[in-house]
């Protein structure tokens, strides 16, 4: 008998005006020892499926119709108290962010023991022993000592192991993992995926993995269900679905996934995915204000030359210089960027790649080294007017589209602000015209200017950020993880837009990402960073085909394999 059967599941979220159906007519079955992946973009209802199974739907959501059966027993109609007895005992759950999933004020031991004692008839001494064994089995070294520690004393990957141990406390038959590796670095992700797979086979646990990441799906799942707008659009064996997708949506979703193994000039334009507006009106860049009077002095040599750049942050202050302690975020990094190229910086979190972007733009002051922009040494600029003139030439696009736009300003004012500040237009009407052209050009339409940022989706907001960055007619654009907060289909559109703009305007770009696949699609040359040092700089293709540095080789080998994915689009 199947461990989990979901039949015609429908989940409704009633609101004052109407009812929103988050999940509609979903059928799934899952056998012991198997992993079923549910994949989809944000708003597809995939997390709602997981929450419905474990009985923790967010208010006011409820199961409107259908059944959830665990070993043949219908569980969605049980009383609240009976459902609670199932949670943890029969069904375990793993959450996305290991940094926030554990109570910061309790030791790992007390959290494990309380869960074990709740579900199993053990004394607290026996529960402690079991807790240590569990930590050992999820691969935490020295479990006897570490169990006495608090969550903040563990790294992100270790905390996710603790979370897994907690989910496995009472030997559940089914584990639901909601984006289990999204918040982790690629090397940690590989370890956690391996652990999950191992536990699944060893303990004969059925696992429901909810994710937006095709790489995770390809790596560990046996079956996959693709969701779109609350409906199941495709369901079958993973190799089958990824290799030969039949539904239009699955096809377009797979084609939008950036691949580390092949470089494409452009992502295929997918019309199944919503919000893929074309520029409503094309402007001729060469005659337009945007392309005009790019009065930058011609330079010989690289546009940006970074030499022995250093940045240290004080971690322990003291009045005595000798007793201060520092964290070296960037250690003697040197690279240069030629005019018109896209230079990629790739690395795991904490490798110092964003710090470099902030040093170049002047948000941080370097502790040492030099940054040459053209013929100007940026680190020694004192005159505020010269600083402004430099800043006008370089603009930045940030990672989080939700916090990088002022929520109280209209979009047209957001885009107009840099033009007015740098006095780049002669009259108010000219500013308005430029803003409306810019909004058109990034695919939002002039009407968008009247709205406020909260009326837009993440991808549209990132377009606003791009329009704002272009508004000073920069020659150098820094993109700091511009698409990591976006769904893959939206990511594909934004990456296409950036590529187009670069070609039209001859922009030079510094592209920062943790995602090797995105780097491969975007960059001419790539620098790999680790612990504040630049391990390797090479041509993009060469880096992927023949990596030189050990760390680069590691990173590449840890990427989930995309071999399963269809290549119909190529």
């Amino acid at each position, binding site marked *: 008998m199947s461990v989990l059967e979901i039949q015609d599941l429908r989940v409704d979220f009633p609101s004052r005006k109407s009812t929103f159906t988050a999940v509609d007519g979903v059928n799934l079955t899952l056998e012991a020892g198997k992993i079923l992946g549910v994949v989809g973009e944000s708003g597809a209802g995939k997390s709602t499926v997981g929450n419905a199974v474990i009985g923790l739907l967010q208010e006011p959501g409820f199961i409107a119709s259908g059944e959830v059966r665990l070993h043949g027993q219908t569980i969605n109609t049980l009383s609240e108290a009976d459902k609670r007895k199932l949670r943890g005992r029969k069904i*375990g759950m793993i*959450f996305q962010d290991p940094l926030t999933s554990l*109570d910061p004020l*309790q030791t790992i031991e007390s959290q494990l023991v*309380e869960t074990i004692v709740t579900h199993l008839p053990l004394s607290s001494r026996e529960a402690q022993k079991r807790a240590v064994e569990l930590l050992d089995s999820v691969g935490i070294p020295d479990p006897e000592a570490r169990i006495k520690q608090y969550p*903040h004393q563990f790294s992100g990957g270790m905390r996710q192991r603790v979370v897994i141990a907690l989910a496995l406390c009472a030997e559940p038959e089914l584990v639901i993992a909601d984006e289990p590796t999204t918040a982790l670095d690629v090397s940690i992700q590989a370890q956690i995926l391996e652990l999950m797979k191992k536990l699944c086979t060893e303990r004969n646990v059925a696992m429901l993995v909810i994710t937006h990441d095709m790489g995770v799906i390809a790596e560990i799942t046996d079956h996959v269900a693709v969701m779109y707008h609350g409906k199941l659009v495709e369901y079958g064996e993973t190799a089958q679905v990824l290799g030969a997708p039949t539904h239009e949506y699955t096809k377009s979703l797979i084609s939008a996934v950036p691949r580390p193994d092949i470089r494409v000039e452009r992502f295929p334009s997918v019309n199944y995915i919503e919000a893929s507006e074309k520029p409503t009106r094309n402007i001729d860049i060469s005659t337009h204000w945007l392309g005009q009077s790019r009065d930058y002095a011609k330079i010989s040599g690289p546009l940006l030359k970074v030499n022995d750049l250093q940045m240290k942050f004080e*971690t322990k202050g003291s009045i005595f210089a000798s007793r201060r302690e520092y964290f070296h975020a960037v250690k003697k990094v040197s690279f240069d960027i030629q005019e018109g190229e896209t230079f990629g910086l790739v690395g795991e979190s904490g490798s110092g790649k964003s710090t470099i972007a902030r040093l170049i733009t002047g948000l941080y002051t370097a502790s040492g080294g030099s940054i040459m922009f053209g013929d100007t040494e940026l680190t020694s600029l004192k005159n505020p007017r010269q600083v402004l003139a430099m800043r006008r030439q370089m603009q930045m696009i940030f990672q989080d589209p939700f916090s990088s736009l002022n929520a109280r300003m209209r979009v047209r004012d957001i885009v107009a602000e840099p033009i007015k500040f740098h006095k780049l237009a002669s009259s108010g009407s000219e500013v308005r015209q430029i803003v409306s052209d810019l909004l058109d050009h990034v695919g939002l339409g002039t009407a968008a200017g009247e709205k406020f940022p909260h009326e837009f989706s993440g991808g549209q907001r990132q377009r606003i950020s791009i329009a704002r960055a272009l508004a000073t007619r920069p020659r150098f654009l820094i993109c700091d993880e511009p698409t990591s907060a976006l769904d893959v289909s939206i990511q594909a559109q934004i990456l296409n837009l950036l590529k187009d703009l670069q070609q039209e305007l001859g922009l030079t770009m510094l592209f920062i990402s943790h995602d090797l696949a995105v780097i491969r699609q975007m960059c001419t040359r790539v620098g790999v960073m680790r612990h504040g040092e630049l391990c390797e700089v090479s041509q993009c293709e060469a880096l992927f085909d023949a990596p030189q540095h050990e760390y680069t080789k590691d990173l590449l080998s840890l990427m989930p394999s995309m071999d399963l994915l269809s290549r119909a689009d190529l």
Partner: protein
Amino acid sequence: MLGFTIRRLLQAMIVMLVVALLSFTLFRFVGDPVNQMVGVDTSIADREALRERLGLNDPMPVQFWRFISNAVQLDFGTSYQFKQPVSDLFARRIPATLELSFMSAIFALAVGVPMGIYAGLNRESAISKLFLSLSLIGISLPTFFIGILLIFLFSVTLQWLPSFGRGDVVQIGSWWTTGLLTVSGLKALVLPSITLGLYQMTLIMRLIRAEMLEVIRTDYIKFARARGLPDRIVHFRHALKNTLVPVVTITGLQLGSIIAFATITETVFQWPGMGLMFLQAVQEVDIPIMAAYLMLTAFLFVAINFCVDILYFFIDPRLRVGR
């Protein structure tokens, strides 16, 4: 942690020095102390002699130093009004104020915390909304008005509780007197404690409610539920403990202000505490009492804040271990 404690102690000392300077200037510049002490018919020569004897002709720093060293030994001079040492006067009055303050703090916590937890967990229930409306009244009505209202209801109309004084008190040790051991003493405490604690109670309730709502939304609470832990453990062991840091901060500060600003309640209920004495001192320009009151209040605030800072270490392990 030791370094932290020492740093906090140093800061506390600086605060106390500044306050001492303030009370010292009070002595010097609010009227001439000699004029306050002597009669109208005292000769100028006698006045000069008194000035010399009191050391008022010494240079400022010398006088300030004398003031501080006396204050450290709890010697704040002699009250102009009562012609008695100020410290003796305070010693007689302090038990009344402290007893009242602690009773109202206990009332505020014992009622405010459970109400806050309930309102935080059952956001939509009618009782929570009732609590919130009541707390709005508690926050917006001035203390003296609540006092008078309570006196009118329970003393005048129902005649259950006394409207003024401490009732019968019992002497403990050489100088402490308590009303907690007699029936009339306890009865007398009820109305003033409620009056004084009502505002703090509503504040604590609203704070705990807001913090609970915040914490309930966090991932670790969701995860605790997903592990099937009973509500009791989720709510009290995980949720409540995580709301404590801000609550302890505010409660500590409030306890300080309860003690310092008991003045109004003491006046309404004719409570023989420090506040009432202070008010009389202000009317009579009895500067030594005012200065001592200032110092004492500042000291209580500083001491309570210091305890709160130390308490953080016991609540939050992230502070204990450091990085």
